[in-house]
């Protein structure tokens, strides 16, 4: 298993993601600059959290038009795994690799806290290790995590098991309490909570560990 972590100007969870991947998924992690036009040969592309381009205009909007994105689209097209966390989720919706959009939190404030999640679908390469523990706790930290999609899109997503994580208590006004989704092919996932911040008992909860273990398992 090899992974690439994409770095945009303004990414700020890239180091956290690399550490979590190295410790719990694979030792082979590359850092890839947004201006690159090709990816190293990897199984997983990880788009980390942060404020790419300052979240100016719309969060994720400018990053989604970066040169590296067409390589990521090709990778996804070929069935490669793509995970976008927080700002990475925003980038993936802006790039139309995932449906919907992430709007300003309903409370209009940045919200940083631990949230309880229900793992709705453990049949994905990102969530298989949650099998048997359908509830977990992972922190969120975002200003624009309010997931929106038209009702028929939401219905379809729910019907196809594309909702992977749901909030027990909605922190941001997200439609149908959605915290994380996967595309219809099942290889591109976006979520607002930060599993990479929840892998070490010293720094808080460990609800993100199964996320990284799932990815390690997906290729073993």
């Amino acid at each position, binding site marked *: 298993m090899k992974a690439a972590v994409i770095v945009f100007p303004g990414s700020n969870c890239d180091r956290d993601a690399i550490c979590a991947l190295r410790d719990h998924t694979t030792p082979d992690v590359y850092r890839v600059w947004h201006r690159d036009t090709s990816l190293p040969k990897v199984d997983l592309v990880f788009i980390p959290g942060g404020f790419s381009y300052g979240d100016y*205009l*719309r969060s994720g*909007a*400018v990053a989604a*038009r970066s040169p590296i994105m067409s390589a990521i689209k090709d990778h996804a097209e070929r069935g490669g795994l793509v995970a976008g966390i927080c700002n990475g989720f925003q980038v993936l*919706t*802006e790039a139309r690799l995932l*449906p*919907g*959009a992430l*709007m*300003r*939190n*309903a*409370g*209009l404030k940045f919200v940083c806290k631990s949230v309880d999640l229900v793992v709705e679908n453990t049949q994905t390469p990102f969530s298989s290790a949650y099998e048997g523990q359908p509830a977990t706790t992972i922190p969120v930290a975002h200003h624009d995590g*309010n997931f*929106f*999609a*038209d009702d028929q899109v939401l219905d379809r997503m729910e019907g196809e098991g594309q909702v992977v994580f749901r909030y027990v208590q909605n922190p941001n*006004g997200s439609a149908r309490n959605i915290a994380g989704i996967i595309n219809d092919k099942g290889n591109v996932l976006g979520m607002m909570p930060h599993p990479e911040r929840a892998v070490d008992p010293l720094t808080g909860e460990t609800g993100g560990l199964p996320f990284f273990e799932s990815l390690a398992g997906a290729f073993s």
Partner: protein
Amino acid sequence: MRAVVYVRPRGGVLDPQGQAVVSALKHLDFPEVLDARQGKIIELVLEDGDATKAKERVTQMCEQLLANTVIEDYQVKIEA
């Protein structure tokens, strides 16, 4: 040449910022405000050129970047 792009939340899309404006205005004693929607306005300074062509180009900019048509509508105006 200048272009102005208006970007507004699409009908049917919840607009938390607009809602916050309504309730804040109510508190400030402006009960006459029944509803509000908040959008963006982007003013572009363009190289001088043909207005029709410019409108086309700015429309492309909107489609490619300035608006997210999943949640937003846009409108382009070219000013001399």
